[in-house]
């Protein structure tokens, strides 16, 4: 479905994507795991064409997003849905209009059918009855579910999730995880999830990619990652503060820096 080849992206002297190669299989849930600053959000932005790589290519359905023109890119985007970290709902529209928005913009579907579609999507995320509330009246978890309803309203082939469970309580996290799984199983939607939530990751993932400062340090099925004996992978999934992955980012010697000569 999506294939990444020799992807490089640098910001100044920080390498966010260091020659990445990976693929996201059709109908599977792939989780991109990594700590803060590991380049996972940058990778997601490149997978969706929101950001262009410095070099390398992202093939979506066989089309390179970096070289595709705006028209072609927008055509492909209609097959993508995205759930943003902060939900990115339009604050001047109510829930109903937020979800109906892509339909109104891209189709000529009659109002009564739009109503049916919106109601169905809201039912899928368990929020029927909130149509006339404004986004500001919802909790964070509910906003994410509305964001998800909006992401699937055009029946996309791929959904991208940017940290879908961060900042949510355990029950909301469980609800979102179940939704991701259900959407994947019932609609066969390919899912790409960026996360640093290990528990939720193993609940939903078919495949896992672990990023560390712009490099892929492990990738494979959830089972393979769980059984991995790579110390860096073990440290990450067990959340150990000490290990091969350093806590600090600087190469300077600590003693040298604090000692006054």
């Amino acid at each position, binding site marked *: 479905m999506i294939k990444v080849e020799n992807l490089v992206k640098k910001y100044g002297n920080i390498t966010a994507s260091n020659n990445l190669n990976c693929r996201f299989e059709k109908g599977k849930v792939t989780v991109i795991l990594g700590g803060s600053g590991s380049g996972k959000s940058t990778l997601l932005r490149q997978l969706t064409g*929101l950001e262009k790589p410095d070099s390398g290519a992202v093939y979506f359905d066989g089309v390179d997003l970096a070289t595709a023109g705006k028209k072609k890119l*927008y055509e492909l*985007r209609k097959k*993508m849905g995205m759930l943003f*970290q902060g939900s*990115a709902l339009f604050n001047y529209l109510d829930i109903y209009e937020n979800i109906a928005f892509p339909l109104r913009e*891209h189709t000529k579907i009659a109002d009564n059918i739009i109503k049916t579609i919106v109601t169905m999507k809201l039912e899928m995320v368990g929020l029927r009855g909130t149509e006339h509330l404004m986004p500001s009246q919802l909790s964070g978890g509910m906003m994410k579910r509305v964001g998800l309803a909006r992401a699937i309203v055009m029946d996309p082939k791929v959904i991208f999730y940017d940290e879908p469970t961060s900042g949510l309580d355990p029950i909301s996290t469980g609800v979102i995880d179940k939704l991701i799984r259900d959407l994947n199983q019932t609609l066969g939607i390919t899912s790409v999830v960026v996360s640093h939530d290990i528990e939720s990751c193993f609940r939903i993932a078919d495949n896992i990619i672990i990023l560390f400062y712009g490099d892929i340090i492990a990738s494979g099925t959830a089972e393979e990652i769980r059984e991995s004996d790579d110390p860096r992978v073990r440290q990450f999934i067990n959340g150990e503060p000490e290990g091969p992955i350093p806590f600090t980012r600087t190469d300077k010697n600590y003693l040298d820096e604090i000692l006054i000569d």
Partner: protein
Amino acid sequence: MEIAASIGRYTLTRLQVFGRSGIFLFLSLFQAFIPPYRFHRLVKEIEFIGSKSFLIVFVTALFTGMVLGIQGYYSLSQFGAEAALGIMVALSIIRELGPVLCALMVTGRAGSAITAEIGIMKITDQFPALEMMAIDPLKYVISPKILAGIIALPLLTAFFDLVGIAGGYLVGVKLLGVNEGAYIGKMISSVEFVDIYGGILKSFCFGALITWISTFMGFSAQPTTEGVSRATTNTVVLTSLSILIVDYILTSLLL
């Protein structure tokens, strides 16, 4: 050397920003003429920039006209030329005060709000969200705002002119006893088409200026609360100054 270098660096970054804002304006206006057209968006923005500024423009115009009535009467009566009060009030308002004050009031009311709104849309990822829905944010959010400014400002200015002249009439004729026939008659015979045309032309430019600067400031704001508040302040300062400078340039060109 150090100073020269830093002046050069400063100038270059300023020029870059100016260039970017120019491209931004060009793309937004260009996008506005490509289908699909979203008239409801345009109407909504005209309502926000135009209709909702009516009250503030009304009050500003009324009191400006009334002050001009008193001041004009005081100055003109020294030469026994009170009869020319109508001309003085009308010309000052139509040629100068109408477009400028109207633009300044709209900057404070709508310009700052536009910057804040766009800045918050940026903080909350609403622009990438639009992108992901295959909708061009420039076309959807920015173009209608810039067009609305260009359409709304001349209308507001015309309204300002009318209320201002009425304010002058109220004070000059009703309060200070200037002859009614002289106030209106002399005004009608001396105000030329070119005066009105010049004032409206100014307001077109100011309308574009206000929405251009306020949208660009919001769009290029740092995506933090501090960044948005700074951008909002910058919008008001920069737009107000630009209006005064552009006003001088246009006036000297039109005369």
